[in-house]
C-alpha cells in the first residue's frame, strides 16, 4: 500500500510545482518543466506498475517482520519522540531541551540511571563545550528562558 501512496504523494507535489511553473516566464520555467513533466510521467508509470503487480498477486502478502518493530505504528511512535524533541528544544533551548528530552527518552526505555546520567552529561558537555564555547555557535535559549531572562 505504501509503495503506491508514496509515489502518489510525490506525484501530487510535482503536479503542484508544474502548475506553478506554468505561470512563470520562459527562462524561469523551461528547465523545471523539462524535468518535471517527464518525472510526472515516470511516476504515473511507477504507480501503474505497482498496481499491476498487486493485482497479479492474488493473496496479499503481509509486509516485513513483526509490525511492532517495522510497521507504521513503530514509525509513528518514533515521530512522536521527534516532536517531543523539537518542542523541548523550542521551549527550553538546546542545552536544557536536549537534557530533558534525553532524560525522558532514556528513562521511558528503562535505561539504567547510571547510563542515563552519563549520556545526558556527555551530550550536554559536547553541545556546550564544542558547539557553544569552541565554535561560538549561538545556542538558542528557548522561548521559556528568553521570556524570563
Amino acid at each position, binding site marked *: 500500500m*505504501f*509503495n503506491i501512496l*508514496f*509515489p502518489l*504523494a*510525490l506525484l501530487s507535489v*510535482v503536479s503542484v*510545482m508544474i502548475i*506553478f*511553473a506554468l505561470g*512563470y*516566464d520562459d*527562462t*524561469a520555467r523551461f*528547465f*523545471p518543466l523539462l*524535468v*518535471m513533466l*517527464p*518525472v510526472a510521467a*515516470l*511516476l504515473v*508509470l*511507477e504507480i501503474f*506498475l505497482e498496481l499491476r503487480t498487486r493485482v497479479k498477486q492474488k493473496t496479499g502478502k503481509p509486509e516485513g517482520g513483526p509490525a511492532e*518493530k*517495522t510497521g507504521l505504528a*513503530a*514509525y509513528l*511512535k*518514533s*515521530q512522536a*519522540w*521527534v516532536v517531543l*524533541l*523539537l518542542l523541548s*528544544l*523550542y521551549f527550553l533551548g*538546546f542545552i536544557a531541551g*536536549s537534557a530533558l*528530552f*534525553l532524560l525522558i*527518552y*532514556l528513562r521511558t*526505555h528503562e*535505561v539504567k540511571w547510571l*547510563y542515563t546520567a552519563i*549520556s545526558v552529561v556527555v*551530550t550536554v558537555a*559536547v*553541545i556546550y563545550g*564544542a*558547539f557553544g564555547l*569552541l*565554535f*561560538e*555557535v*549561538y545556542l*538558542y535559549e528557548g522561548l521559556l528562558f528568553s521570556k524570563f531572562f
Partner: protein
Amino acid sequence: MYTDILNGILSIFDPMVLLLMFGGMVVGLVLGILPGLSGLTGLAILIPLVFGMEKTQAFALLMGMYAASSQGGSVTAILLNIPGTGPNAATLLDGFPMTQQGHAGRALGISLAASAFGGLFGGVVLALSMPLLRPIVMAFGSPESFIIVLLGLAYIGVLATASPLKGLISGGFGVALSFIGYQEVSGHMRFTADSIYLFDGIRLVPMTLGLFGIPAAIDLIMSGSSISQAKIVHATASDMLEGFKDLFRHWRTFLLCSSIGTVIGIIPGVGGDVAAWVAYGSAKQASKHPEKFGTGCPEGVLAPESSTNAKEGGAMIPTLAFGIPGSAGMAVLLGAFLIVGLTPGPLLLRDHVDFVFSLVAILILGNVLGSVILALAATQLVKVVNVPGTIMGPIILILVAMGAYSTAGNILDVLSAFLIGVLGYAMRRAHFSSPALFLGYILGAMAESYFYLSLEAYGWMFLMRPIVLTLIVIGFFSLNYKWLGKLFKKTGRAA
C-alpha cells in the same frame, strides 16, 4: 629555482609550524565530527588568529584544520550515517553498511588511507602542473562546467540500486527540488510561496542531515539495537590495516577517483560535493561487481574518499594561479593570503615559489598526519558503534538538530531537516534512491545556470568547443561502454 622548491618544502618542518598544524588538525577533526559544522566555520573562527603570524605558520594552522575537518566528517559518516560535511554523504553509502556488518575498522582504514593518498595525489598533481596552471584554468568556462555537471547528472542512473525507474524518478525529483528558490539568471523566485526561508532554496545541511542522518537515527530508535548489528566491534590495528591494503588492492579505482577529484577541483564553481558522487558513480560503472555497491563494498568507500581529498589539491590550482577559489574553503583561504600580505596570481608563482611549495607540502602532510591522528583516535571512536540504539538513537537526533541549527542559526533549518527526514525515511521504505535525489538536488539548478550562461555568452556554438566535445564523447562512452562493448564484440564475430 630548485633550491627554492626544496627550501619551501623543508620549511614546514619547523617546530612552530608543526605545532600549529597539529593544533589546527585537532580543531578540524572535532569540527568534522560534529554534524553541521564544517571547515568553513573553522576558517572563519581561526582567521582572526592569523593576523601577525608568519605566512607558513598561518597556513599550517588553517590548512591543517581544513584538511582534518573533511576526515573528521568521514568518521561520522561511516560510524553514524551522518555526513559531517557535504561531500561525506557519498561515503556513507557503503561506509555505514560496513559498520553495520561489523567492519567499521576496515572502513575507517580505507577512509584514512584514501585521505592520505588522495591528498598526496592532489598535491603532487598540483606541484607538477605549476607551469601549466594558467592555461588549464583558462580552458574551463561555463560550457565546460555545464557538460561536467550534465555528466554528473547522468550518473544518477548508475547510482540507483533498485529499479532504474525509481532511480530516475528520485533523481528527477531532486532536480525539481533544486529549482526552488531564486533563479540567478533571471531574478525570478520559483516555488517559494513568498517565504523568505525558501529564497535560497532548500538548504544543503538540512538536506544532507535529513535525507541520510535522520532515517538512520529513526531506525535505531525503532529497533533499539546498536548500529553494529554484528557482534561487538573493535577497530583494531589489523582491521584498519586491512582497509589500508584495500587501497592498494583497488589501485585502479583509487587512481580513477583521485583524478576525477582533482579535475573537478580545478574547475571553480562546480563544487566539491559533485566530485564524491561522480567518483562513486564512475567506480561503480567500472567495477566488476557493481551490484555490491551500496551494500558495504570497500570500493564504495574508497571512491568518494579519494576524490574528496584529491579535490583540494585541484582546488588550489585556480586559487594560486588567479586568486579564484576552486572551492568554498579556498575562498576563505584567499582572505588569509591577503592578511599575510600575499597576492595569489602569476606574481605569486614567480616571486614566492618556495612558499607555494610549502603550501603543497602542508596540504600533503596535513592529509597524511590527519589520517594518522584519526587512526589513533579511531580505536576509541569506534566504540560508539556498540552502544545500544536506545541510547544512540536519541543522541543522534539531538546532534542532527544541533548540526542543522549550527549552519545559520535558524530554527527553521532544524524543522526542515526533520521534515526532509520524513521524506528520507519514506524513500527508503519505498525503495527509492536517496543518493540519486541528493545528486539531482545538488546539480540540477547548477546545470541550468551554466546552460543559460553558456548560451548567453557564446550562443549555441558553445557545444562546439573542443573540451566540451571531448567531454561529451568521454561521457557517452564511459556511461555506455558496457553494452557498446558487447555490440562491438557481436559485430566482430559476425564479420
